């Protein structure tokens, strides 16, 4: 007989398992990371390397690229678990689905959003950003990428097992990402024109808090529809 697990330890195990599974497919994790670096490096090649222009473009370029990188890896949250039946077992278990979904989102963020937060300041240097701007960039991405994973999870759950998922997720999720983009890039822009980033960062935090509450609920609902 197995002993009965408490909800907390189940949640911890889901989180640890998802991270472990993702780490076993290192190339997937690395691909998103390198996509971010390569895509961001393309912009100066298209626009010319005028330092002033690069500095003005930097917040939007880095944020849009981060947005696309997060979006590219979204289908990973549920697809493999759906393919091998794990997801159905999770939905059938007597543990709270909403919290398990939240753990899966956190695992996704840890391996797709968090690396971007760490590497973004380096790319920012390439774009001629300096101290305070780099700090704000990292802080805004830290909150923003988590919000992106949360919101994106709804799109991933809705499109589970549908043909042509990649492009469809983009169409569903990108419009919903707009507030995160506006406040995230807005925070960096505010610092670079000498204003305080607090307003934009607070609003970004508010978006994150809302996503934290609603997105696991909506994702769980979408998953149960997908598995009907």
């Amino acid at each position, binding site marked *: 007989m197995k002993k009965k697990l408490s909800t907390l330890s189940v949640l911890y195990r889901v989180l640890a398992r998802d991270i472990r599974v993702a780490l076993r497919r290192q190339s997937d994790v690395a691909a998103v990371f390198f996509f971010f670096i390569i895509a961001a490096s393309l912009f100066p090649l298209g626009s010319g390397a005028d330092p002033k222009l690069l500095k003005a473009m930097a917040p939007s370029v880095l944020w849009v690229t981060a947005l696309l990188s997060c979006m590219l890896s979204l289908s990973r949250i549920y697809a493999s678990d759906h393919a091998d039946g794990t997801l159905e077992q999770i939905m059938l278990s007597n543990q709270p689905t909403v919290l398990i979904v939240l753990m899966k989102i956190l695992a996704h963020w840890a391996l797709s959003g968090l690396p971007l937060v760490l590497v973004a300041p380096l790319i920012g240097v390439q774009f001629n950003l300096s101290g305070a701007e780099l700090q704000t960039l990292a802080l805004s991405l830290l909150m923003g990428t988590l919000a992106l994973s949360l919101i994106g999870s*709804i799109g991933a759950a*809705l*499109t589970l097992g*549908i*043909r*042509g998922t990649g492009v*469809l997720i983009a*169409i*569903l999720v*990108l*419009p*919903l990402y*707009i*507030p995160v983009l*506006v*406040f995230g890039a*807005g925070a960096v822009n505010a610092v670079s024109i000498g204003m305080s980033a607090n307003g934009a960062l607070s*609003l970004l935090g508010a*978006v994150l808090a*809302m996503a934290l509450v*609603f997105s696991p609920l*909506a994702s769980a*609902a*979408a998953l149960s*529809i*997908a598995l*009907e």
Partner: protein
Amino acid sequence: MKNIDTKTDLQRLKFNWLQFASPKTFYPLAGKIIPWCAAGAAILIAYGLYLGLLVAPTDFQQGEGYRIIFVHVPAAWFSMFLYLLMALYAGLGLVLNARLSYMMATAIAPTGAMFTLVALVTGSLWGKPMWGAWWVWDARLTSELILLFLYIGYFSLKAAIDDKNRADKASAVLAIVGAINVPIIYFSVKWWNTLHQGASVSLTQAPAMAAVMLKGMLVMTIGFWLYSIAVVLMRVRAEILERDSKAAMLRLD
């Protein structure tokens, strides 16, 4: 036994609105409503255009070009109103598991997207003489564009799922998520850029426009409303025919 009998008698006396939640009873009802709404829409839109294009005075700042607002503003109102209505029906469908609600949501979406497109096109036509550019990234035009993206997402998801039942429910979740996002997007875009002129019609303060202009706009709004009802009901009827093509009810007439 006696109690139950009187209860059913009472229920028989009372007019039961819920019976129209069944496609079978709704189909003929919709058929009766459509001609009235269509006729009303034609008359009101013609009258509204007459008021807007011929009767309303020329604006002393914007000249004749402003007259496009008689189409633009009601279209923009309806693009947002219809999205919320679509989300409401989608939510009703999820809560009550009523097929007709999903059909209503499906039927509302194209009309809403059409009004969004009309608002965008008329907005850019208005923008050219006023701002000197076909497109300006101001808060309202941009939110309207994002609203169009939300409609496109709704259509795309619905079209991608073959199983009708799942398509209904999944797109309903998307519609509700979108409806929660609409005010956030609007606020964020407004925060991002407040270039647009202040709202000229608001509910809290007296409108800063001539009474005849307001009248023209309201007449157009009601006209668009009736048009929406007529078109949506026609589409629901088509939807019922398509989905229940094998049902016996359709062989009655």
